């Protein structure tokens, strides 16, 4: 398990990390969310010792992370980069060996990952001759080639087409299922909601919300209510505990207090209008995010 505790970092006047703390467990996937400039990249770099922290600790299985541990971590930085003139396969072999694999193991792993990610035929081509999407695949392979115990990816989904997103999601899911601890940052909240067991939301260098997605939703003070009414809807205005109310023609989207009595609401609705659709759910991750990151 990766545990970040009390991370602090100041760049000049800017407080980039202000007590940031969360944990990533083996076999689980954690979505690391936050507005731009909240400290996501700095946190991820801190895991790899690329940032000298002012305070706080990064531990793996209870021990401080050292160079030896980092060899078993995989990293895909936000600023993607490979050697453009180097062959895809050679590149992966080199990175695998830098992580301590023998040459033959690195070759086997490189071939396996290029095959898995559908770029096996391009293994002998220089990376610069590959399409953007295929370069991204090689980049992903570069973070996986040594079968890391912890996988850290900074915005892995940005710039991918829908097929690329699907491949990336499948690979990450498979890694987590195989026991790897996976953490990635993203702005695509619905994707994180579908994919991750856990989330951590960072704002101004502090974690403002962290935990199991399901539990966080259940624990929310709010519920999401969606109605499509044939006519009327006046009664909704009398409803207490409404936090937000959007109207789109006959469609009403509300965020209501958790304690709002749904049966009463249904009764009121059915007496004044015809209900075509009714949904009462826990809030979306998007709702949780907005609530946590209020500006």
């Amino acid at each position: 398990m990766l545990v970040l505790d009390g991370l602090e970092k100041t760049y000049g006047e800017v407080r980039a990390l202000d007590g940031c703390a969360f944990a990533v467990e083996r076999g689980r996937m954690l979505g690391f969310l936050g507005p731009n400039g909240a400290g996501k990249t700095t946190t991820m770099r801190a895991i790899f010792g690329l940032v000298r922290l002012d305070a706080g600790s990064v531990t793996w299985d209870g021990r401080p992370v050292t160079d030896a541990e980092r060899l078993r971590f995989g990293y895909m930085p936000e600023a993607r980069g490979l050697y453009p003139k180097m062959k895809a396969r050679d590149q992966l072999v080199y990175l695998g060996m830098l992580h301590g694999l023998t040459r033959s193991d690195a070759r086997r792993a490189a071939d396996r990952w290029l095959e898995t990610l559908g770029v096996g035929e391009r293994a002998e081509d220089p990376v610069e001759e590959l399409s953007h999407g295929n370069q991204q695949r090689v980049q992903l392979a570069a973070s996986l080639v040594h079968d890391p115990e912890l996988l850290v990816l900074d915005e892995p989904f940005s710039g991918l087409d829908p097929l690329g997103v699907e491949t990336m999601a499948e690979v990450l899911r498979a890694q987590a299922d195989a026991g790897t601890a996976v953490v990635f940052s993203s702005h695509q909240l619905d994707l994180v909601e579908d994919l991750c067991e856990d989330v951590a939301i960072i704002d101004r260098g502090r974690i403002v919300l962290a935990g199991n997605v399901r539990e966080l939703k259940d624990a929310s003070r709010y519920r999401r209510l969606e109605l499509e009414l044939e006519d009327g809807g006046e009664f909704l205005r009398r409803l207490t505990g409404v936090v937000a109310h959007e109207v789109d023609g006959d469609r009403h989207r509300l965020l209501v207090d958790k304690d709002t009595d749904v049966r009463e609401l249904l009764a009121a609705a059915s007496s004044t209008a015809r209900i075509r659709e009714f949904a009462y759910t826990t809030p979306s991750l998007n709702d949780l995010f907005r609530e946590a990151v209020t500006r």
Partner: protein
Amino acid sequence: MTSLQTMRLVAGREFRERGRSRAYLVSSAVTLLIILAMIVVPAVLRSQGRTFTVGILGSGNEPILAAAEALTAADEFPTTLRRVAFEARDEAVAALEAGEVDAVLVDGRELVVATAGGFGGSDLERLLQQAAGTRRIQDLLAGDEAAADVVEILTSDALEVVPLRGERGREVGQRGVIAYGGLVLMYIAILSYGTWMLTGVTEEKSNRVVEVLLATTKPWQLLAGKMIGIGLLGILQFVGTVVAAVVALRVTELFDLPAIPVDLLVAMVAWFLLGYAVYSAAYGAAGSLVSRAEDAQTAAFPMTLVAIAGFFASFRALDDPSSTTAVVLSFVPPVAPFVVPVRVAFGAIPAWEHALAAGVTVVFLALLVRLAGRVYSGALLHQGGRISFRDAFRSAEV
């Protein structure tokens, strides 16, 4: 993974990828061709001998021309003097202007040439001057027994010079050739391979591969591995070129290649390595400050300036290897790799001074590598634009 293993991997990648690149192969081939052309072309031209056409006006010219032929008779390749006689000065001048003759000899006392200087004419001019001088001494001392002594005095030094250090005479000439050749080669090599280092580092930063690398390697390992990899390639190219040049010189016999004493060879190689290490570390740090290849040369300008200054300063050492300037410069680390080998070549540096100069440079190198490593690590993750040396030093994270 030990540091050594990591550096070996980094150096190995650099060696393989750069060694296979078209840029390396083409630059090696071009360097080789230029060197061979510089040796083979003059050798071929010389083997065909030389022919000068001399215009003759008036009398008293033939003894000089005959003396000139006698002077060159012992040469391996013949010099032929063709004579064209003229009746009037106007005709001779017109022929000279038209390039039909190389020079016009008038009454054995005047030589008319087309232009004041120039490489083509000066050989002929020098030959005829020498011939005329010899003629005149022979005329002056005709029948005198002292004639041989006079010629001896005119062609040798009157005082015997006894140096406390180093040797003189033919030996000096040969050592001078080695020192000068070594100096020029060293300067070219250090600047070219330093530039590879510079652009290599900038490339890694601009194509952003560096963050992936830094997640598993330390900046100094990356820097050192790169220095070693590029250094090996450089040495390979350098040695290949020098060997080709030596072989070509032996085959063509363009000039007698002095035998290089082993101690001098060792000193030159050692100082080349020191010089390369100093400049490649500095160039590597400079390369890390910028994100675009276009800005790399600008960032490296101060280092290039120091190298140029060192190169010219070492000419002072060529003139007088024991001068105060030469002694002082031996202890200025970025300049020492240029100056010390020159002094070694002339045998003009005492062993203790040589050892001390090497020690100073090694200490400087150790400090420089640490400084460069720190700047490198502070600057590498800074994207976009140029980061100042001071900011890079301060923001070193790893």
